[in-house]
């Protein structure tokens, strides 16, 4: 009697299992993509922003939208039976060790087929070591340290420009602005946070300063989580540079801005990387952020020349109630690049995706960035078309000011003194 019951139970259990499997098999399957971002910790606000960008991209791929983005007009990935993408998020807390362990967890336990994200270059560095070891493609569109694509990794691809490109842009801007205003620039001071991102910017900026003929009068690095930066600013004031070039994350950007004002540090211009363009920065410092110049790959005012930017910006605002920021815009790219590759590969196998990524050729009009397109260098896997622009904060808004011929707004130069501003 007992054995009979057991066998009935077994049979029905198998039946149920079999049914569920076949039900799932009929629906278009979902493809899991792992997204590692700093969702808590010091730069959690940035992580949230990146998360939103990636989520909106996946929404557009999965749904039907009348936009010129890749796979927007179809639902899911057509060549994989309309399979939908699913983002599986993992929290790095902004720390490299978590970047690696969370990436490993996503791959081995969540069975994701590819990885995106990380934002901080130091975290991307360790996370991509995990993907390289486990042979899973990693498409990064939000970390900017040049070394990431100098390692010859087989599975790592970068869509966005890196800091060597950005640093060169900034010096080119200085040359251009000298010509435009007739105000001679002789010296620059370099200020950078001391992890992977900042120190690399420092390195490249020093190199380009030499190349462009500017004297580096101060070279200051600092920990990004400093509570007080008066000694750093003191060192800068002592050096009396014409230009300050600053690579920072957000907390230090806020702290430095306040300290510049407090100690009345007024060079001819302040050009910056990263921290000053994060969505938390302007609400925190308000008008004190005015006239600072920041490297960028995206700005909503470029919509005048490229309507797609306006359309995506609208969607973002409708979904999250805030303006799309540069970070969100950068993280927005990776899911499209991956989806496009999987669609062409007609597969979700690592080797097939990598092969397809190498032949990626997304034209400029299918993107929200001012680039010619997306095409990866066969060796470094860096997008060869990625370039930067410069924005300036004017009246508490980011406006594109460089390259001069493409920019909708005029740069305000030199940097007006702190005292006596309205």
């Amino acid at each position, binding site marked *: 009697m007992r054995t009979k019951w057991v066998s009935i139970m077994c049979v029905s259990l198998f039946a149920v299992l079999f049914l569920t499997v076949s039900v799932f098999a009929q629906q278009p399957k979902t493809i899991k993509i792992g997204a590692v971002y700093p969702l*808590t910790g010091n730069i*959690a606000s940035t992580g949230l922003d990146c998360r939103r960008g990636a989520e909106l991209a996946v929404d557009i791929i999965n749904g039907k939208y009348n936009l010129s983005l890749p796979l927007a007009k179809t639902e899911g990935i057509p060549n994989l039976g309309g399979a939908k993408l699913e983002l599986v998020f993992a929290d790095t807390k902004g720390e490299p060790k978590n970047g690696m362990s969370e990436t490993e967890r996503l791959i081995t336990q969540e069975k994701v087929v590819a990885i995106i994200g990380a934002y901080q270059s130091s975290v991307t560095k360790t996370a991509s070591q995990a993907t390289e070891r486990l042979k899973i493609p990693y498409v990064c569109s939000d970390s900017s340290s040049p070394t990431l694509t100098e390692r010859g990794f087989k599975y790592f691809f970068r869509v966005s420009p890196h800091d060597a490109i950005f640093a060169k842009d900034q010096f080119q801007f200085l040359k251009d602005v000298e010509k435009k205003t007739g105000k001679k620039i002789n010296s620059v001071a370099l200020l950078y946070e001391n992890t992977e991102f900042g120190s690399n910017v420092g390195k490249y900026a020093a190199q380009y300063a030499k190349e462009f003929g500017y004297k580096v009068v101060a070279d*200051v690095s600092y920990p990004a989580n400093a509570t007080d930066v008066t*000694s750093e600013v003191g060192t800068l004031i002592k050096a009396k540079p014409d230009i300050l070039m600053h690579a920072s994350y*957000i*907390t230090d950007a806020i702290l430095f801005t306040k300290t510049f004002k*407090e100690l*009345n540090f007024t060079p001819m211009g302040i050009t910056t990387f990263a921290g000053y363009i994060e969505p938390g920065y302007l*609400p925190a410092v308000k008008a004190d952020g005015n006239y600072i110049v920041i490297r960028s790959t995206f700005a909503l005012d470029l919509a005048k020349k490229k309507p797609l930017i306006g359309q995506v910006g609208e969607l973002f605002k409708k979904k999250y109630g805030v303006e799309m920021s540069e970070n969100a815009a950068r993280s927005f790219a990776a899911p499209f690049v991956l989806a496009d590759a999987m669609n062409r590969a007609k597969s979700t196998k690592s080797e097939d995706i990598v092969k397809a990524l190498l032949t990626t050729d997304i034209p400029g009009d299918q993107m929200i960035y001012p680039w010619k397109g997306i095409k990866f260098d066969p060796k470094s896997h860096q997008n060869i078309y990625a370039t930067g622009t410069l924005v300036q904060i004017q009246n508490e808004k980011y406006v594109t000011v460089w390259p001069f011929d493409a920019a909708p707004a005029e740069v305000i130069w030199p940097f007006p003194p702190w005292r006596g501003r309205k």
Partner: protein
Amino acid sequence: MPEQLMQQIVNGLLIGFMYALIAIGLTLIWGVMNIVNFAHGDFLMVGMFTSFWLYTLYGLDPLFSIPICTLLLFVMGLLIYRFIVSKVMAGPMLAQLVVTFGVSIFISNLAVYWWSPDFRLIAKPLLSGTWDISGVQLSIPKTVASIGSIVTSLFVFLFLKKTKTGKAILATEMDREAALLMGINTERINSLSFGMGAALVGIAGAFLSTYYYIYPQVGGVFGTIAFCVVALGGFGSISGAFIAGILVGLVQTLGGFFFDPSYKYAIVFMIYLITVWIRPQGLLGW
């Protein structure tokens, strides 16, 4: 150059007084209960957010919200002690270590959940701007906060030395069993000092919010420095924490100025290591 040097000394003092004020609450809790309050930085964050919300919702300037912050943090400290910390006081050392750590994670994540991870500043505080004293820039909010720190520290010092309750706290700090034998209700002293420690960091939070940005993880950075200050000054010593706070502030800015700013925290912690090597009990500890 002398002007720049003066500026750095002034800056060092201004940040040092703030470190001191934050550390005093921590050293009090540590001294009395032998418990490391890992949630101290998060108490600071709660204080800062309290004054931020009082300002944003009711237009109350941080200067006037100090009494509210103090009271609120006192009650919060009391409750956390009564319902969480006191339960593990009799337990193993590890449980005591872990419990405040848990409280810390809970509070900071609750803050992310309630208030989002965004950075906030008090838009137009009553105190703002700088005084220019023959070329040396003196930040007004930082100066007022420093005065606040001195007054508060003095007050705590006198409270401990002159009042009966204060003496009871000191007695418990020195020898718990002897204090118990003398008829001191050490359980009451425990909860009182936990509440006081929290209230003190609440005052620090209100002052800090006049010039520093506020976000859920702000406690982490200040908390770490506060631990260093307390250990440097001597466990449980109020005057030690005060002096060590100023010392750390000065070393940080001057070290950064004379050497390279990237070494400034290395210099701070080196001085701490040397002190511990020569005087393990800290500068004024016993």
